[in-house]
């Protein structure tokens, strides 16, 4: 009898505590915006990010980047031309789905958002850009790469991030630069990619750009595998049989690790690994786990500018708040809000027409990412957006192993290692 009673008690306490933990986790994972109610004139910025669903890790990072910039602007005295008006971030969650992203943006506009930012995914961006055009609310995207979004000729859509064609042009440009500089030209290449929309689009685009580039590199095999694969031994055996000189992987964090270790074990001889523009090679966990094996991998990516004051200051605040470093995506989210604040400062108004006019005249230099001043062209694309070529190089400090090697004005290391020593000879 007492045993049964104890059992019941336990279950109740268990349910109570577990629901408390659940509630706590749910609340904290949203990054709890600080609602600033002190100064009456606040300007609302709607941030739609994939905060839950498969891209939740990135989405939450994006929100935090947006919020960090809002807090920074407010701490510096708000929008001065509007009497120190404070910014307020309204949070929307796209759940990684275009239709939800659109309804969330709509909700934020109804709640009084003067500008919408976000949304990390191109599909969501397409949906929101149409909505913002109808509602006549400026949509200033922090991250989203598909060219199509700004090809529609919409007046209210702008993008701080780079386009896919910009990304691919960067890959070809840096590939030419490295092969010219080192006088080594790979002849046979294998392109690998994950079988998701991003992987297929990127690798397909890259192969086309490579063919057009005039470089004498022949793609001898294309290896595609499902996202979240656990074993690449067969794929690497196929890569080895194709006898490539260089590997162009479009990967995600998990498969970068398996791919490299399998290349080591199967002794695939390569001049090097050159990522046309994908994650999987620069995350702190990947760098730590692969150690020497990831040295000399080169990747063409939109990247942070770690030497800039604005990055260092933002990174310190970000680390303090979330004990993670401010990565590229979050840094772009941060930049997005800084650009919006700069526009508001110049318009001194939330009138959409005035904001549009000021956005077109933007010339914003003080940002934390690699690239020129943020200026928008006719389509609304940022003409200053650039990719960097990064290479993982030996360094005692794990976090300093990823070095910018090009463009020159941002370079952290003036030596590029290519061809790289074989993986098993390090």
């Amino acid at each position: 009898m007492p045993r049964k009673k104890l059992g019941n008690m336990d279950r109740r306490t268990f349910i109570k505590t577990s629901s408390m933990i659940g509630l706590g986790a749910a609340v904290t994972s949203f990054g709890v915006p600080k609602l600033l109610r002190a100064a009456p004139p606040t300007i609302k910025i709607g941030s739609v990010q994939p905060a839950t669903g498969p891209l939740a890790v990135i989405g939450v990072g994006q929100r935090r980047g947006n919020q960090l910039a809002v807090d920074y602007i407010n701490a510096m005295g708000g929008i001065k031309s509007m009497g120190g008006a404070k910014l307020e971030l309204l949070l929307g969650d796209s759940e990684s789905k275009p239709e939800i992203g659109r309804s969330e943006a709509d909700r934020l506009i109804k709640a009084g958002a003067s500008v919408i930012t976000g949304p990390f995914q191109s599909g969501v961006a397409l949906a929101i850009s149409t909505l913002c055009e109808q509602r006549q609310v400026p949509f200033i995207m922090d991250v989203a790469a598909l060219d199509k979004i700004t090809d529609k000729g919409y007046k209210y859509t702008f993008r701080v991030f780079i386009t896919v064609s910009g990304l691919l042009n960067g890959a070809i440009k840096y590939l030419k630069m490295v092969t010219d500089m080192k006088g080594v030209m790979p002849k046979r290449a294998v392109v690998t990619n994950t079988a998701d929309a991003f992987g297929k689009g990127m690798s397909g685009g890259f192969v086309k750009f490579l063919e057009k580039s005039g470089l004498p590199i022949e793609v001898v095999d294309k290896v595609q595998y499902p996202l979240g694969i656990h074993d690449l031994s067969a794929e690497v055996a196929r890569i080895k049989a194709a006898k490539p000189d260089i590997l162009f992987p479009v990967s995600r964090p998990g498969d970068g690790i398996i791919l490299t270790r399998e290349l080591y074990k199967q002794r695939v001889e390569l001049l090097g690994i050159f990522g046309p523009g994908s994650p999987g090679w620069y995350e702190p966990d990947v760098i730590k786990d692969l150690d020497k094996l990831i040295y000399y991998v080169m990747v063409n990516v939109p990247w942070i500018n770690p030497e800039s004051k604005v990055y260092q200051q933002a990174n310190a605040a970000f680390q303090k708040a979330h004990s993670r470093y401010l990565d590229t995506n979050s840094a772009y989210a941060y930049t997005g809000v800084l650009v919006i604040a700069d526009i508001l400062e110049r318009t001194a108004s939330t009138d959409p027409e005035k904001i549009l006019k000021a956005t077109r005249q933007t010339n914003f230099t003080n940002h934390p990412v690699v690239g020129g001043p943020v200026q928008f062209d006719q389509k609304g694309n940022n003409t200053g957006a650039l990719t960097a070529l990064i290479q993982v190089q030996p360094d005692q400090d794990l976090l300093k192993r990823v070095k910018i090697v090009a463009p020159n004005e941002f370079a952290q290391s003036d030596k590029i290692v290519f061809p790289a020593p074989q993986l098993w000879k390090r």
Partner: protein
Amino acid sequence: MDATLTIQLIIQGILLGGIYGLIAMGLSLIFGVMGVINFAHGQMMVMAMYVSYWIFVLLGLDPYLSLIIVVAVIFVMGYVIQATVVNRIIDYPEAMQVLPLVSIGLILENLALLLWGPDHRSPQTILSLESIWIGPIMIDVSRLIAFVLAIFFTILIFLFLKKTNIGKCIRAASDNRMGAILVGIDVNRIYNASFGLGAATTAAAGVLLLPLMPISPHMGHDFTLTAFIVVILGGMGNLLGALVGGLILGVAELVSTLFLPATLKQVVSFSILIIIMLFRPQGILGGKK
């Protein structure tokens, strides 16, 4: 067709198949004894991988050395799950047994997410990069160890079931529950031990996989599915069948990459499954039912 590549893929397939067999054996054992399908199987394996990872990172103990500890931990976990949840639902219709086990899977998966976060983790263990070369053919050492140990564990479980007292009780309970109760076997405790043993087997497989693939909280589903296919292939409840099924699936998956894009791997596994179910629904070695 490149002969070296084909041989290479067959060898790798056999080695991988041994581990598939070990994962599936736990599922088969649990089904064979209790008639319950463990939908949390893959998640239990992932749990084992995380425990092993934790021991490696915190204490610096290589997965091969922490194997016994991890297996013991997961055995206890399996024992407790059986004692608290599964024993209560054992007489319910099959459809109703599914939900509690699926929920255990979800709880384990999200527990891993809560404790270790969503990142992929893949620490470099002592042997994770070693390989042996026989001419142009490469044999991955950690895969070979995994294969040899998987076979070893299979034999061990066989001997355990045939020779020991508890093993005989498990077989008795599996054969005829009422009869086992009548001769004085504490069937519930035997069930607890069987579920624990099934969980421990998959835990061993997980630890052996740790040097081979990065862990992330959501990878459990894939392995539950793989284990299902293997078990159905070999024959439900037949332990040797699990090993045979594992080997067939491992080789088929890898060799298929010669002809098909790797994205169609699962199509190959499921096609084999459908063919087996059409022509030999009891599985390759499942003769009795």
